[in-house]
């Protein structure tokens, strides 16, 4: 009997020493290649931690995280949090505060504008993974062929240049967008809203997107499809992932997308336009406004139900480390979270579009930060689509949306 106990105990001890901790990470597949490579490095560094990566398409991510954690709060240790989800996830009790885990270096040197996306009511719930906005990608080669020397700076030029490109038979449509009934539509509308001088809410928290500038922005979207005919009508049923194909194959000259798109445009397996696609400032819709785009950074947080919080933090801190952020920037085109990396000679030299992308970061508007964001977003998606499919005028659509948003937020 004693012998048996000794055997059992020693087996247990061996298991404890060599026992690996497995952490489950769910993340959007946008940077999946980078994250898979980084995981290999991480596991070399921490042989006792095994990382299981579940990568899903962005449009399935929210639902997958929420429904899975509702059933089993420990199902994931690390979750990918889009900037618009932070308030809601915290209120639902999904995220663990990490304030006491942050190093002085992190507190001081991570860009505050990016760190903000993981903060809610004075607490921090994870680390941002990149500083992302919608960038304006243009096909330099096609513009040259049309005799156009620079990318458009205003929406009028955008329309005019598109028409030239179309008349010369270089493209069927100047641009394609991702205006399908999905989150991407709200990002594109935010980009246009700000560039026409509008805003989502006024100082008192009342909807302001249905004022003159907001209507102008939506009117421009409708006109670009039906009046100027420079935007591919397929934009109405393509999301911000589906539209990449047309840009990557030179079927359109202009496209607006996140930083991960840059890797796709320069991957010979997914693109025929390698090296031809450049970045410029998003055109302006109003004199006095230089440019505007929508932010869309994402970060990783630890779930409150996680049983391996320390291991989860090690993983998050590793991906956020300067070394990994540098690889992510140089090889995958993402803008880093560390202020000092923006002056790093290696990054500046090896990331060909770093400068124009950096310029864009000065002209950014956020989507609203609301606990009921998902419902808010859906109301807007439906009414903007009603205008895009010409079932309602832009003014009517936005007025009705504003009314429903007021009701949702409990305002009279």
């Amino acid at each position, binding site marked *: 009997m004693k012998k048996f106990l000794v055997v059992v105990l020693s087996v247990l001890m061996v298991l404890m020493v060599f026992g690996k901790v497995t952490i489950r990470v769910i993340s959007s597949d946008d940077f999946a290649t980078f994250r898979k490579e980084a995981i290999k490095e991480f596991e070399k560094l921490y042989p006792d931690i095994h990382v299981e990566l579940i990568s899903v398409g962005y*449009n399935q991510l*929210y*639902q997958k995280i*929420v*429904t899975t954690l*509702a059933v089993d709060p420990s199902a994931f240790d690390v979750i990918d949090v889009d900037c618009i989800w932070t308030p809601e996830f915290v209120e*639902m*009790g999904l995220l663990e505060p990490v304030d006491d885990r942050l190093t002085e270096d992190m507190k001081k040197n991570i860009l505050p504008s990016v760190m903000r996306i993981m903060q809610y009511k004075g607490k921090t719930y994870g680390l941002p993974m990149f500083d992302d906005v919608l960038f304006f990608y243009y096909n330099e080669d096609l513009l040259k062929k049309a005799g156009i020397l620079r990318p458009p700076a205003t929406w009028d030029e955008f329309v005019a240049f598109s028409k030239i490109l179309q008349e010369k038979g270089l493209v*069927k449509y100047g641009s394609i967008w991702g205006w*399908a*009934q*999905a989150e991407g539509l709200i990002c594109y509308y935010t980009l246009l809203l700000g560039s026409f001088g509008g805003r989502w809410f006024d100082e008192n928290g009342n909807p302001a997107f249905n004022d003159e500038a907001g209507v102008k922005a939506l009117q421009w979207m409708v006109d670009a499809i039906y009046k100027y005919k420079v935007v*591919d*009508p*397929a934009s*109405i*049923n393509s999301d911000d992932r589906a539209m990449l194909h*047309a840009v990557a194959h030179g*079927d359109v000259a202009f496209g607006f997308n996140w930083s991960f798109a840059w890797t796709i445009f320069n991957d010979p397996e997914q693109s025929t336009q390698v090296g031809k696609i450049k970045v410029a400032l998003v055109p302006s819709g109003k004199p006095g406004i230089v440019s505007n785009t929508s932010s869309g950074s994402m970060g990783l947080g630890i779930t409150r139900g996680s049983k391996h919080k320390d291991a989860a933090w090690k993983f998050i801190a590793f991906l956020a480390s300067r070394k990994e952020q540098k690889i992510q920037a140089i090889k995958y085109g993402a803008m880093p979270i560390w202020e000092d990396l923006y002056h790093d000679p290696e990054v500046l030299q090896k990331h060909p579009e770093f400068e124009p992308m950096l310029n864009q970061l000065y002209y950014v508007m956020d989507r609203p930060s609301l606990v009921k964001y*998902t*419902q808010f977003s*859906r109301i807007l998606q*439906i009414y903007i*689509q*009603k205008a*895009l*499919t010409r*079932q309602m005028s832009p003014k009517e659509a936005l007025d009705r949306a504003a009314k429903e948003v007021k009701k949702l937020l409990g305002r009279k």
Partner: protein
Amino acid sequence: MRKRKDISRWIMILPATILIGFALFYPVISTVIISFQDRSLFMPTMATFVGFQNYRDILSSSEFWNAMKVTVYFTVVSVGAEFVIGLFSAILLNQDFAMKGFLRALVILPWAIPTVANGVLWQWIFDANYGALNGILSQFGMIEDYINWLGEPFRALNMVIIADVWKNCWFFTIVLLGALQTIPKSYFEAAEVDGAGFWNRLFRVTLPLLRPAIAVSLVLRTSEAFKVFDIIYIMTKGGPANGTQVLSYYVYHTSFEALSLGQGAAISTIIAVVILLAALFYTRLLMREEVEINA
């Protein structure tokens, strides 16, 4: 002796009864209970009884009635088209000709394709820029400009219906063909001798004799079409502008995206009641005991 047999009979079916009870009745009953509660996915313990509030909210929301309209249209048009195509293809395949066996096997193929694969397939066929449909139509000179098939609410709905009909009409073919083969050839021959043409034979001999098979297949397909979800999720996600948002997709959104389980359960219950009524209607209409042939 007799009595013991009775008991053993009960014991034999007991495990299956319990299993079915759990798998079928438990979810149904708990859905109905949840539909009377104000319940959200993240606070299931804080559920409060709200009576018919969820039903009142839903029945007064325009989004629900829009989804109802879309669903009824989808069901009527797709099941109608599937039935007509299924019936005539079954009659055709019931004839004697050379490739009969091969063709009969072939019709099962679309029906056997998973709905998700079918949805992706048709999504590409209908693609505005790279789709086969635009390619074919423009090569034949039937359209000048490429058409964005899934870009307009009502057109998108009809396009999804086409994709659904292509896959599911063969279900009717298979069921009706099976039933047709049980009808003695002599009936048709007698009708022909009496001078009945194709349509007369169809309405006076074939259809009355197929009635039970038609009833069963119509009930099945109608309830399936009324609950349609997967092909919508794949092809349009309810868009554009909610033009293809059917009731099941609305339930999915309400329960798992807006996270309000109570309202989602209430819509589900309404769907179940509608399907039940439709099934009763069909059986009243089509399932009569005896079959008479009006010659």
